[in-house]
Protein backbone atom coordinates (compact mmCIF):
# COMPACT_ATOMS: atom_id res chain seq x y z
CA UNK A 1 0.00 0.00 0.00
CA UNK A 2 1.45 3.36 -1.08
CA UNK A 3 0.70 6.04 1.51
CA UNK A 4 2.34 8.89 -0.41
CA UNK A 5 -0.92 10.06 -2.09
CA UNK A 6 -2.53 10.61 1.32
CA UNK A 7 0.51 12.45 2.66
CA UNK A 8 0.78 14.51 -0.53
CA UNK A 9 -2.92 15.40 -0.38
CA UNK A 10 -2.68 16.55 3.25
CA UNK A 11 0.48 18.54 2.48
CA UNK A 12 -1.18 20.18 -0.54
CA UNK A 13 -4.34 21.01 1.42
CA UNK A 14 -2.31 22.39 4.35
CA UNK A 15 -0.05 24.61 2.25
CA UNK A 16 -2.96 25.81 0.11
CA UNK A 17 -5.01 26.69 3.19
CA UNK A 18 -2.16 28.62 4.83
CA UNK A 19 -1.39 30.54 1.63
CA UNK A 20 -5.06 31.33 1.05
CA UNK A 21 -5.50 32.52 4.63
CA UNK A 22 -2.61 34.96 4.14
CA UNK A 23 -3.97 36.15 0.79
CA UNK A 24 -7.65 35.87 1.69
CA UNK A 25 -7.87 38.00 4.84
CA UNK A 26 -6.69 41.29 3.28
CA UNK A 27 -8.46 40.54 0.01
CA UNK A 28 -11.78 39.82 1.75
CA UNK A 29 -11.37 42.99 3.83
CA UNK A 30 -10.75 45.03 0.68
CA UNK A 31 -13.76 43.50 -1.09
CA UNK A 32 -16.04 44.03 1.91
CA UNK A 33 -15.45 47.79 1.94
CA UNK A 34 -17.61 49.63 -0.58
CA UNK A 35 -18.29 48.84 -4.19
CA UNK A 36 -16.34 49.82 -7.27
CA UNK A 37 -16.02 48.46 -10.78
CA UNK A 38 -12.57 47.04 -10.09
CA UNK A 39 -13.90 45.22 -7.03
CA UNK A 40 -16.73 43.71 -9.07
CA UNK A 41 -14.21 42.46 -11.63
CA UNK A 42 -11.98 41.05 -8.87
CA UNK A 43 -14.94 39.30 -7.28
CA UNK A 44 -16.01 37.77 -10.59
CA UNK A 45 -12.50 36.41 -11.17
CA UNK A 46 -12.33 34.99 -7.63
CA UNK A 47 -15.77 33.39 -7.97
CA UNK A 48 -15.16 31.87 -11.44
CA UNK A 49 -13.66 28.60 -10.16
CA UNK A 50 -17.01 27.85 -8.47
CA UNK A 51 -18.80 27.58 -11.80
CA UNK A 52 -16.02 26.87 -14.27
CA UNK A 53 -15.27 23.19 -15.04
CA UNK A 54 -11.99 22.36 -13.26
CA UNK A 55 -10.59 21.01 -16.52
CA UNK A 56 -10.99 24.45 -18.13
CA UNK A 57 -9.01 26.11 -15.35
CA UNK A 58 -6.45 23.30 -15.48
CA UNK A 59 -6.15 23.61 -19.26
CA UNK A 60 -5.44 27.34 -19.15
CA UNK A 61 -2.95 26.93 -16.31
CA UNK A 62 -1.26 24.20 -18.34
CA UNK A 63 -1.01 26.52 -21.34
CA UNK A 64 0.07 29.53 -19.26
CA UNK A 65 2.85 27.70 -17.44
CA UNK A 66 4.01 25.35 -20.18
CA UNK A 67 7.85 25.51 -20.24
CA UNK A 68 7.72 25.37 -24.05
CA UNK A 69 6.19 28.81 -24.53
CA UNK A 70 5.40 32.29 -23.21
CA UNK A 71 5.36 32.99 -19.49
CA UNK A 72 6.14 29.40 -18.50
CA UNK A 73 9.21 29.39 -20.75
CA UNK A 74 10.36 32.72 -19.28
CA UNK A 75 9.94 31.41 -15.71
CA UNK A 76 11.81 28.25 -16.58
CA UNK A 77 14.71 30.01 -18.35
CA UNK A 78 15.24 32.88 -15.90
CA UNK A 79 14.30 31.41 -12.54
CA UNK A 80 14.37 27.66 -13.21
CA UNK A 81 10.78 27.48 -11.94
CA UNK A 82 8.47 24.90 -13.45
CA UNK A 83 4.83 24.77 -12.45
CA UNK A 84 3.65 22.10 -14.88
CA UNK A 85 3.82 18.52 -13.57
CA UNK A 86 5.29 19.66 -10.25
CA UNK A 87 4.10 20.11 -6.66
CA UNK A 88 4.38 23.94 -6.78
CA UNK A 89 2.08 23.80 -9.82
CA UNK A 90 -0.47 21.85 -7.78
CA UNK A 91 -0.26 24.46 -5.02
CA UNK A 92 -0.75 27.32 -7.50
CA UNK A 93 -3.75 25.61 -9.11
CA UNK A 94 -5.24 24.77 -5.72
CA UNK A 95 -4.85 28.35 -4.48
CA UNK A 96 -6.75 29.66 -7.51
CA UNK A 97 -9.32 26.87 -7.46
CA UNK A 98 -10.11 27.09 -3.73
CA UNK A 99 -9.95 30.88 -3.42
CA UNK A 100 -13.75 31.46 -3.36
CA UNK A 101 -14.07 29.06 -0.42
CA UNK A 102 -11.68 31.18 1.66
CA UNK A 103 -12.77 34.65 0.51
CA UNK A 104 -16.56 34.08 0.45
CA UNK A 105 -17.28 33.33 4.14
CA UNK A 106 -14.79 35.93 5.42
CA UNK A 107 -16.06 38.69 3.14
CA UNK A 108 -19.68 38.01 3.96
CA UNK A 109 -18.96 37.93 7.72
CA UNK A 110 -17.14 41.27 7.50
CA UNK A 111 -20.06 42.80 5.59
CA UNK A 112 -22.49 41.65 8.27
CA UNK A 113 -20.61 43.42 11.07
CA UNK A 114 -22.15 46.83 11.86
CA UNK A 115 -20.16 49.66 10.30
CA UNK A 116 -20.30 51.44 13.66
CA UNK A 117 -17.81 48.92 15.15
CA UNK A 118 -15.04 50.17 12.88
CA UNK A 119 -16.19 53.76 13.31
CA UNK A 120 -16.10 53.48 17.10
CA UNK A 121 -12.58 52.10 16.90
CA UNK A 122 -11.45 54.94 14.62
CA UNK A 123 -12.80 57.54 17.08
CA UNK A 124 -10.55 55.90 19.69
CA UNK A 125 -7.59 56.80 17.45
CA UNK A 126 -7.06 53.31 16.04
CA UNK A 127 -5.88 52.72 12.48
CA UNK A 128 -7.79 50.47 10.05
CA UNK A 129 -5.11 47.78 10.60
CA UNK A 130 -5.43 47.92 14.41
CA UNK A 131 -9.21 47.88 14.04
CA UNK A 132 -9.07 44.86 11.75
CA UNK A 133 -6.86 42.86 14.10
CA UNK A 134 -8.38 43.83 17.45
CA UNK A 135 -12.06 44.36 16.59
CA UNK A 136 -13.13 42.89 13.26
CA UNK A 137 -11.13 39.66 13.13
CA UNK A 138 -12.06 38.43 16.63
CA UNK A 139 -15.73 39.01 15.83
CA UNK A 140 -15.67 36.89 12.66
CA UNK A 141 -13.65 34.05 14.23
CA UNK A 142 -16.21 31.35 13.48
CA UNK A 143 -16.49 32.42 9.83
CA UNK A 144 -12.68 32.38 9.46
CA UNK A 145 -12.65 28.84 10.85
CA UNK A 146 -15.42 27.85 8.45
CA UNK A 147 -13.41 29.31 5.56
CA UNK A 148 -10.27 27.43 6.63
CA UNK A 149 -12.12 24.12 6.86
CA UNK A 150 -13.98 24.58 3.59
CA UNK A 151 -10.73 25.44 1.81
CA UNK A 152 -8.89 22.49 3.32
CA UNK A 153 -11.73 20.04 2.59
CA UNK A 154 -12.21 21.37 -0.93
CA UNK A 155 -8.51 20.98 -1.70
CA UNK A 156 -8.62 17.39 -0.42
CA UNK A 157 -11.22 16.57 -3.06
CA UNK A 158 -9.64 18.29 -6.06
CA UNK A 159 -9.34 16.14 -9.15
CA UNK A 160 -9.73 17.76 -12.55
CA UNK A 161 -7.53 20.80 -12.13
CA UNK A 162 -4.85 18.79 -10.33
CA UNK A 163 -4.82 16.13 -13.01
CA UNK A 164 -4.54 18.71 -15.79
CA UNK A 165 -1.59 20.66 -14.40
CA UNK A 166 0.07 17.97 -12.29
CA UNK A 167 -0.56 14.77 -14.16
CA UNK A 168 -0.16 11.54 -12.22
CA UNK A 169 3.46 11.34 -11.04
CA UNK A 170 3.82 9.07 -7.99
CA UNK A 171 5.17 10.92 -4.96
CA UNK A 172 5.12 14.27 -6.79
CA UNK A 173 1.64 15.01 -8.10
CA UNK A 174 -0.41 11.87 -7.50
CA UNK A 175 -2.82 13.04 -4.81
CA UNK A 176 -5.42 10.78 -3.18
CA UNK A 177 -8.27 11.56 -5.58
CA UNK A 178 -6.07 10.68 -8.55
CA UNK A 179 -4.76 7.58 -6.77
CA UNK A 180 -8.37 6.41 -6.30
CA UNK A 181 -9.11 6.90 -9.99
CA UNK A 182 -5.86 5.15 -10.91
CA UNK A 183 -6.57 2.21 -8.60
CA UNK A 184 -10.07 1.76 -10.02
CA UNK A 185 -8.67 1.88 -13.56
CA UNK A 186 -6.32 -0.96 -12.55
CA UNK A 187 -9.16 -2.90 -10.87
CA UNK A 188 -7.36 -2.48 -7.51
CA UNK A 189 -10.55 -1.88 -5.53
CA UNK A 190 -8.88 -2.60 -2.18
CA UNK A 191 -6.47 0.35 -2.50
CA UNK A 192 -9.23 2.57 -3.90
CA UNK A 193 -11.34 1.67 -0.88
CA UNK A 194 -8.57 2.50 1.61
CA UNK A 195 -7.88 5.90 -0.01
CA UNK A 196 -11.60 6.68 -0.22
CA UNK A 197 -12.26 5.66 3.36
CA UNK A 198 -9.36 7.76 4.62
CA UNK A 199 -10.58 10.84 2.72
CA UNK A 200 -14.09 10.21 4.04
CA UNK A 201 -12.92 9.91 7.66
CA UNK A 202 -10.64 12.98 7.48
CA UNK A 203 -13.33 15.12 5.88
CA UNK A 204 -15.99 13.91 8.33
CA UNK A 205 -13.73 14.67 11.31
CA UNK A 206 -12.89 18.24 10.28
CA UNK A 207 -16.46 19.17 9.33
CA UNK A 208 -17.65 17.66 12.63
CA UNK A 209 -15.04 19.72 14.49
CA UNK A 210 -16.43 22.90 12.93
CA UNK A 211 -19.99 22.00 13.88
CA UNK A 212 -18.88 21.42 17.47
CA UNK A 213 -16.84 24.64 17.57
CA UNK A 214 -19.69 26.67 16.10
CA UNK A 215 -22.52 25.00 18.00
CA UNK A 216 -23.20 28.06 20.14
CA UNK A 217 -23.46 30.19 17.04
CA UNK A 218 -25.71 27.49 15.50
CA UNK A 219 -23.88 27.75 12.21
CA UNK A 220 -23.29 25.10 9.60
CA UNK A 221 -19.96 25.17 7.77
CA UNK A 222 -21.83 26.28 4.66
CA UNK A 223 -23.12 29.49 6.28
Amino acid at each position, binding site marked *: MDWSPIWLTLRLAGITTILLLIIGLPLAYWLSNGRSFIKIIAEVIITMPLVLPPSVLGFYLLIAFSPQQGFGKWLSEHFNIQFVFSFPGLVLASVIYSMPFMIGPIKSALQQL*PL*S*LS*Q*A*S*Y*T*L*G*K*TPMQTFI*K*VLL*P*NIRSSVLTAIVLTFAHTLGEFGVVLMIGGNIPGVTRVASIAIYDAVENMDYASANVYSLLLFVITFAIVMAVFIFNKHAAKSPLE
Partner: protein
Amino acid sequence: MINIAIEKKMRTYQGHNILKVNTSIAPKSIIKVYGASGSGKTTLLKIIAGLTLPEKGKIIFNDTPWLNTDNNFNLAVQKRGVGMVFQNYALFPNMTVLQHLEYATKDQQWIDRLLHFGQLETMLLHKPEHLSGGQQQRLAILRALATKPQLLLMDEPFSALDPEMRVGIITELKNLLNELGITCLIVSHNPLEIDSIADDELCIL
Protein backbone atom coordinates in the same frame (compact mmCIF):
# COMPACT_ATOMS: atom_id res chain seq x y z
CA MET B 1 -14.65 77.92 19.09
CA ILE B 2 -16.02 75.36 16.63
CA ASN B 3 -17.24 76.77 13.34
CA ILE B 4 -19.45 74.47 11.35
CA ALA B 5 -20.89 75.23 7.90
CA ILE B 6 -21.97 72.08 6.10
CA GLU B 7 -24.44 70.92 3.52
CA LYS B 8 -25.30 67.30 2.84
CA LYS B 9 -27.93 65.59 0.74
CA MET B 10 -29.75 62.86 2.63
CA ARG B 11 -32.18 60.15 1.66
CA THR B 12 -35.02 59.79 4.13
CA TYR B 13 -38.35 57.96 4.22
CA GLN B 14 -39.99 61.19 3.13
CA GLY B 15 -37.69 61.48 0.11
CA HIS B 16 -34.64 63.66 -0.31
CA ASN B 17 -33.66 66.15 2.33
CA ILE B 18 -30.78 68.57 2.62
CA LEU B 19 -29.02 68.88 5.94
CA LYS B 20 -27.81 72.46 6.29
CA VAL B 21 -26.02 73.58 9.41
CA ASN B 22 -24.24 76.87 9.91
CA THR B 23 -23.29 77.53 13.48
CA SER B 24 -20.55 78.39 15.94
CA ILE B 25 -20.12 76.56 19.20
CA ALA B 26 -18.39 78.07 22.22
CA PRO B 27 -15.51 76.03 23.61
CA LYS B 28 -16.18 73.88 26.68
CA SER B 29 -19.92 74.29 26.26
CA ILE B 30 -22.61 71.62 26.29
CA ILE B 31 -24.96 71.85 23.34
CA LYS B 32 -28.33 70.19 23.13
CA VAL B 33 -29.02 69.06 19.54
CA TYR B 34 -32.64 68.35 18.70
CA GLY B 35 -34.92 68.05 15.72
CA ALA B 36 -37.45 65.76 14.05
CA SER B 37 -36.67 62.15 13.16
CA GLY B 38 -34.69 61.96 9.94
CA SER B 39 -33.65 65.60 10.14
CA GLY B 40 -29.97 64.62 10.19
CA LYS B 41 -28.89 64.86 13.84
CA THR B 42 -26.86 61.63 13.71
CA THR B 43 -25.46 62.56 10.30
CA LEU B 44 -24.30 65.90 11.69
CA LEU B 45 -22.42 64.18 14.52
CA LYS B 46 -20.80 61.78 12.04
CA ILE B 47 -19.75 64.65 9.79
CA ILE B 48 -18.15 66.45 12.75
CA ALA B 49 -16.42 63.22 13.81
CA GLY B 50 -15.06 62.70 10.29
CA LEU B 51 -17.01 59.51 9.66
CA THR B 52 -19.21 60.94 6.90
CA LEU B 53 -18.33 63.45 4.24
CA PRO B 54 -20.74 66.26 3.27
CA GLU B 55 -21.00 67.52 -0.30
CA LYS B 56 -20.03 71.01 0.84
CA GLY B 57 -18.65 72.32 4.04
CA LYS B 58 -16.05 73.68 6.41
CA ILE B 59 -15.35 72.72 9.99
CA ILE B 60 -12.77 74.59 12.03
CA PHE B 61 -12.03 73.49 15.58
CA ASN B 62 -10.11 76.01 17.71
CA ASP B 63 -8.42 77.48 14.60
CA THR B 64 -7.50 74.00 13.32
CA PRO B 65 -9.18 73.10 10.04
CA TRP B 66 -10.90 69.71 10.17
CA LEU B 67 -12.77 69.89 6.91
CA ASN B 68 -12.75 72.08 3.85
CA THR B 69 -14.44 70.65 0.79
CA ASP B 70 -13.26 73.60 -1.31
CA ASN B 71 -9.73 72.22 -1.29
CA ASN B 72 -10.64 68.57 -0.59
CA PHE B 73 -9.19 68.70 2.91
CA ASN B 74 -10.56 66.20 5.41
CA LEU B 75 -8.65 65.57 8.64
CA ALA B 76 -8.68 61.86 9.50
CA VAL B 77 -11.08 60.86 12.25
CA GLN B 78 -8.17 59.46 14.29
CA LYS B 79 -6.55 62.90 14.40
CA ARG B 80 -9.61 64.88 15.48
CA GLY B 81 -9.55 63.82 19.14
CA VAL B 82 -13.26 63.18 19.15
CA GLY B 83 -15.16 60.86 21.47
CA MET B 84 -18.42 59.44 20.22
CA VAL B 85 -21.31 57.64 21.86
CA PHE B 86 -23.20 55.82 19.13
CA GLN B 87 -26.96 55.42 19.21
CA ASN B 88 -26.57 51.63 18.94
CA TYR B 89 -23.62 51.80 21.41
CA ALA B 90 -21.27 50.07 18.90
CA LEU B 91 -19.69 48.01 21.68
CA PHE B 92 -17.17 45.38 20.64
CA PRO B 93 -18.75 41.93 21.21
CA ASN B 94 -15.32 40.30 21.71
CA MET B 95 -14.21 42.62 24.52
CA THR B 96 -15.05 42.75 28.21
CA VAL B 97 -15.91 46.01 29.98
CA LEU B 98 -12.30 46.38 31.10
CA GLN B 99 -10.90 45.50 27.67
CA HIS B 100 -13.08 48.21 26.07
CA LEU B 101 -11.48 50.84 28.27
CA GLU B 102 -7.96 49.38 27.99
CA TYR B 103 -8.33 49.41 24.21
CA ALA B 104 -8.98 53.16 24.40
CA THR B 105 -6.44 54.21 27.05
CA LYS B 106 -3.45 52.93 29.02
CA ASP B 107 -4.17 55.24 31.97
CA GLN B 108 -5.24 52.78 34.70
CA GLN B 109 -6.20 55.50 37.19
CA TRP B 110 -8.47 57.11 34.65
CA ILE B 111 -10.02 53.72 33.86
CA ASP B 112 -10.71 53.15 37.57
CA ARG B 113 -12.32 56.55 37.85
CA LEU B 114 -14.48 56.00 34.77
CA LEU B 115 -15.60 52.60 36.07
CA HIS B 116 -16.64 54.25 39.32
CA PHE B 117 -18.47 56.98 37.41
CA GLY B 118 -20.35 54.44 35.31
CA GLN B 119 -20.91 52.12 38.29
CA LEU B 120 -19.46 49.21 36.33
CA GLU B 121 -16.72 48.17 38.77
CA THR B 122 -18.37 44.81 39.40
CA MET B 123 -18.82 44.11 35.70
CA LEU B 124 -15.17 44.25 34.63
CA LEU B 125 -15.04 40.83 33.02
CA HIS B 126 -18.49 40.91 31.44
CA LYS B 127 -18.87 41.11 27.67
CA PRO B 128 -21.61 43.36 26.21
CA GLU B 129 -24.03 40.46 25.64
CA HIS B 130 -24.08 39.89 29.41
CA LEU B 131 -24.82 43.53 30.26
CA SER B 132 -28.25 45.14 30.52
CA GLY B 133 -29.21 47.89 28.06
CA GLY B 134 -28.44 50.57 30.65
CA GLN B 135 -25.05 49.04 31.47
CA GLN B 136 -24.18 48.83 27.77
CA GLN B 137 -25.08 52.48 27.32
CA ARG B 138 -22.95 53.50 30.30
CA LEU B 139 -20.03 51.50 28.91
CA ALA B 140 -20.41 53.32 25.57
CA ILE B 141 -20.22 56.65 27.45
CA LEU B 142 -17.15 55.54 29.43
CA ARG B 143 -15.36 54.32 26.31
CA ALA B 144 -15.97 57.65 24.56
CA LEU B 145 -14.56 59.50 27.58
CA ALA B 146 -11.60 57.14 27.95
CA THR B 147 -9.44 58.98 25.43
CA LYS B 148 -10.14 62.33 27.17
CA PRO B 149 -11.43 63.80 23.89
CA GLN B 150 -11.48 67.52 23.16
CA LEU B 151 -14.95 67.12 21.67
CA LEU B 152 -17.58 64.63 22.83
CA LEU B 153 -20.41 63.70 20.48
CA MET B 154 -23.29 61.81 22.08
CA ASP B 155 -26.18 60.30 20.14
CA GLU B 156 -29.12 59.54 22.44
CA PRO B 157 -26.74 58.66 25.26
CA PHE B 158 -29.23 58.35 28.12
CA SER B 159 -32.21 56.65 26.43
CA ALA B 160 -31.74 53.27 28.13
CA LEU B 161 -31.02 54.55 31.63
CA ASP B 162 -33.62 54.43 34.38
CA PRO B 163 -34.66 57.90 35.66
CA GLU B 164 -32.61 57.70 38.88
CA MET B 165 -29.46 56.51 37.11
CA ARG B 166 -29.98 59.12 34.38
CA VAL B 167 -29.97 62.02 36.85
CA GLY B 168 -26.83 60.70 38.55
CA ILE B 169 -24.94 60.10 35.29
CA ILE B 170 -25.93 63.46 33.79
CA THR B 171 -24.83 65.35 36.91
CA GLU B 172 -21.53 63.50 37.14
CA LEU B 173 -20.97 63.87 33.38
CA LYS B 174 -21.35 67.63 33.67
CA ASN B 175 -18.63 67.67 36.36
CA LEU B 176 -16.29 65.53 34.25
CA LEU B 177 -16.81 67.68 31.14
CA ASN B 178 -16.09 70.84 33.15
CA GLU B 179 -13.00 69.34 34.74
CA LEU B 180 -11.54 68.17 31.42
CA GLY B 181 -12.71 71.19 29.43
CA ILE B 182 -14.53 69.05 26.90
CA THR B 183 -16.97 70.57 24.43
CA CYS B 184 -20.00 68.33 24.08
CA LEU B 185 -22.87 67.92 21.63
CA ILE B 186 -25.75 65.78 22.85
CA VAL B 187 -28.48 64.59 20.49
CA SER B 188 -31.67 63.83 22.33
CA HIS B 189 -35.25 62.99 21.45
CA ASN B 190 -36.15 64.11 24.92
CA PRO B 191 -34.53 67.56 25.19
CA LEU B 192 -35.95 68.10 28.68
CA GLU B 193 -33.64 65.44 30.12
CA ILE B 194 -30.53 67.48 29.36
CA ASP B 195 -31.94 70.96 29.92
CA SER B 196 -30.27 71.02 33.32
CA ILE B 197 -26.75 70.77 31.87
CA ALA B 198 -27.03 72.31 28.39
CA ASP B 199 -25.48 75.75 27.87
CA ASP B 200 -26.98 76.22 24.44
CA GLU B 201 -29.04 74.40 21.83
CA LEU B 202 -28.95 73.60 18.15
CA CYS B 203 -32.14 72.81 16.29
CA ILE B 204 -31.85 70.73 13.12
CA LEU B 205 -34.71 71.35 10.72
